[in-house]
């Protein structure tokens, strides 16, 4: 038997697991509609790659992973896309997010599946792509995209693979029942991951000792495979990734680091099962095991539900008693959150739907002042100081919160559970974490704004200098032109004529090619000739019936027009030569 280590803190809430273990994994009738949120995993939302009205087959990709941390979404059944819009989703905020709605056609027809039964021959890269394509995200509750987790193998050699079958939260039995019924497939999944990671030296399955049947099933299937099943005393929260790693190896994952930095990868047993399905059967992640528990539900049982099934479909199928139910909780009683509506869909991370009665999980009692009993620090599995954090959180002292390692809090709820004053400690920590993250984000955008502002100042300054130098150059030019002008404009004498002449000169010198000059002169000639003709006509009219004054005026204008024609003709001949 392998040595196990004991984590600090922890609590022992009533198990309440036996209720949902009386029956095997059940199946629900196909719901009328499936609602698939584009964010069912940790990270950024997937990008929809179907359009409304499109017919889709079971297993067809509906949304592909975006850049960074993201996972694809697939159609859990065949049907038509009837909407891509904001819908209420399972989220503590009760807010809406982008979802794809499928109206099922009832045929449940599969798309052509591509499987790799001989995964031993596939390269790590191929297997990883396959897992990424199948949209697999951690099924233990956090929903971290598995392909990205397994990618850590390429950066640092992984020598330990840990399969998390702890399932420490009360009521939830999804992993337990899955292991009991399908241990062989989980072991296959582990083998695929082991092959992908380059055969790590140690492969451990961590499981709490309150699941004897599951342990027996695992032991039976692990014989001769080199996989070690390690069971340890039940304590909440042993199933936290860092906690489990400590229990099994005695190594602590340093604050701000990942298990991969210690050469370890930790996967949920349900995820291993999903990986087997994806690689060997070619089925993307479109279903999962979800526990339905609580006194307000007629039947407590585990179901293999299609992802996107509305919670209402699940509970109605089970004689749900609304009057008896205090609230609907997604996840367990310790870390789960209340649902605002039963119309929200089940997603990849929905481990459990809990519909407790008022006596089972009573409403929160009003908080009392802190009596400094220190029970919270004894219960904290991350060895933090919950009391201290509570005071700093109320004082909004971000600096001290960070120096007291608020971000190492795993929000397990053990401190709130033991608090005799019913202080909702975890909510304080969550809110402070949000505040700090926001403050950091604001600071980052402020830095960008500063940069842009300063860049703009520099740009404006440069533009000013450029304008100034242009003005200077123009001034110098005119001065030069002035110096040159006396020799060329002596004949006319007046200064106004000087300027006009200079402008004309500039006009001519500006002309780029002789062809352009010629064309312009021809146009001028034409216009001048027309003006001459007009003036001559007017002169004829005036000579017939005008006064002597008018006659003299017209005569002058005819003379001027003729001179213009002559000048232009002359210049035209000059240019043509």
């Amino acid at each position, binding site marked *: 038997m392998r040595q196990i280590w004991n984590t600090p803190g922890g609590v022992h809430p009533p198990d309440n697991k036996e209720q949902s273990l009386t029956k095997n994994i059940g199946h629900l009738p196909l719901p009328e509609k499936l609602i698939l949120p584009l964010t069912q995993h940790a990270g950024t939302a997937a990008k929809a790659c179907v359009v409304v009205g499109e017919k889709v087959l079971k297993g067809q990709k509906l949304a592909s992973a975006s850049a960074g941390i993201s996972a694809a979404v697939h159609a859990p059944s065949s049907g038509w896309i009837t909407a891509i819009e904001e819908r209420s989703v399972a989220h503590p905020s009760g807010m809406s997010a982008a979802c794809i709605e499928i109206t099922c056609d009832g045929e449940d027809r599969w798309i052509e599946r591509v499987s790799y039964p001989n995964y031993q021959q596939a390269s790590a890269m191929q297997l990883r792509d396959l897992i990424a394509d199948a949209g697999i995200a951690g099924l233990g509750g956090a929903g971290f995209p598995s392909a990205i987790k397994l990618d850590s193998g390429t950066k640092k050699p992984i020598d330990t693979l840990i399969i998390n079958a702890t399932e420490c939260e009360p009521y939830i039995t999804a992993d337990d029942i899955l292991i009991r019924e399908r241990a062989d497939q989980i072991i296959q999944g582990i083998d695929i991951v082991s092959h992908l990671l380059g055969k790590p030296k140690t492969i451990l399955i961590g499981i709490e000792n309150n699941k004897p049947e599951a342990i027996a099933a695992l032991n039976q299937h692990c014989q001769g495979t080199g996989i070690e099943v390690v069971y340890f005393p039940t304590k909440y929260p042993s199933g936290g990734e860092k906690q489990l790693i400590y229990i099994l190896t005695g190594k602590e994952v340093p604050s701000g680091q990942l298990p991969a930095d210690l050469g370890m990868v930790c996967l949920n047993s349900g995820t291993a099962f999903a990986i087997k399905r994806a690689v060997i059967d070619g089925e993307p992640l479109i279903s999962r095991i979800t526990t339905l528990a609580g006194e307000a539900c007629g039947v407590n049982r585990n179901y293999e539900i299609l992802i996107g099934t509305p919670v209402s479909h699940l509970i109605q199928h089970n004689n749900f008693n609304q009057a008896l139910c205090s609230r609907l909780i997604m996840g367990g009683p310790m870390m789960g959150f209340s649902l605002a509506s039963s119309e929200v869909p089940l997603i990849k991370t929905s481990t459990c739907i809990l519909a407790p009665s008022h006596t089972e999980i009573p409403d929160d009692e009003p908080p009392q002042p802190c009596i400094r009993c220190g029970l919270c620090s004894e219960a904290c599995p991350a060895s933090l100081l919950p009391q201290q954090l509570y005071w700093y959180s109320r004082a909004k002292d971000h600096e001290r919160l960070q120096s007291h390692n608020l971000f190492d809090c795993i929000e397990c709820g053990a401190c709130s559970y033991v608090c005799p004053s019913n202080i909702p400690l975890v909510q304080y920590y*969550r809110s402070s974490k949000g505040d700090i993250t926001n403050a950091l984000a604001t600071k980052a955008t402020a830095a960008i704004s500063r940069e842009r502002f300063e860049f703009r100042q520099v740009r404006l300054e440069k533009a000013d200098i450029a304008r100034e130098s242009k003005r200077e150059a123009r001034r110098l030019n005119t001065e030069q032109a002035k110096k040159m002008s006396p020799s060329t404009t002596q004949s006319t004498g007046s200064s106004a004529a000087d300027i006009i002449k200079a402008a004309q000169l500039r006009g001519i010198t500006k002309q780029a090619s002789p062809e352009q000059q010629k064309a312009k002169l021809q146009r001028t000639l034409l216009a001048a000739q027309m003006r001459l003709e007009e003036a001559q006509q007017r002169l004829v009219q005036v000579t017939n019936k005008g006064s002597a004054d008018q006659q003299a005026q017209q005569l002058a204008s005819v003379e001027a027009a003729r001179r213009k024609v002559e000048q232009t003709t002359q210049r035209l001949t000059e240019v043509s030569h």
Partner: protein
Amino acid sequence: MMSLLTDNTMLAALLALVGLGTLFGGLLGYAAEKFKVGSDPIVQQLDELLPQTQCGQCGFPGCRPYAQSIADGDAINKCPPGGQSTINAIANLLDISAPSLDEEHGEEEIRTIAYIREDECIGCTKCIQACPVDAILGAAKLMHTVIADECTGCDLCVEPCPVDCIDMLPIVENIHQWQWSAPEHSADLIATTASGMHEDAA
């Protein structure tokens, strides 16, 4: 040479002192150049704390000039976008008591972002010239638009618009920006007496 020095101890001492003086003088000179402080570090720190909206509500053309002015002894409560939290942070940095926001310069409001009603935009570029962070995109006689991610919500583009087609809209919170709110404080922080309902140490 050595015999000359040993014979004239006075000369040796003089040479040693001059030598040391030159050496240390050189070192100090080098250090002064090498570790020169470009600008007043306190201005830099103050500028870091200001929200960088560059709105000019404080009466200075940007956040840095105001930071400079605070360093020169100006009041620290002239920044409405930063609000009380910025005032507190500056007071903390300068180790002075934090005053409340000077209402003369405006009130602390929720953050907004400029939106151009694009159908109505005539493409006059006046808002582009007014934007302190180059967050408006467009060209003469072509529609303009605000790069929402870069907009600081400073308001400066609204006034120059000849057709009033710019709206300042509050930022809509989506599910990714949502965060847990702090619980309502119904109880005192620490029980101090038997009845446990006295002063709040926060």
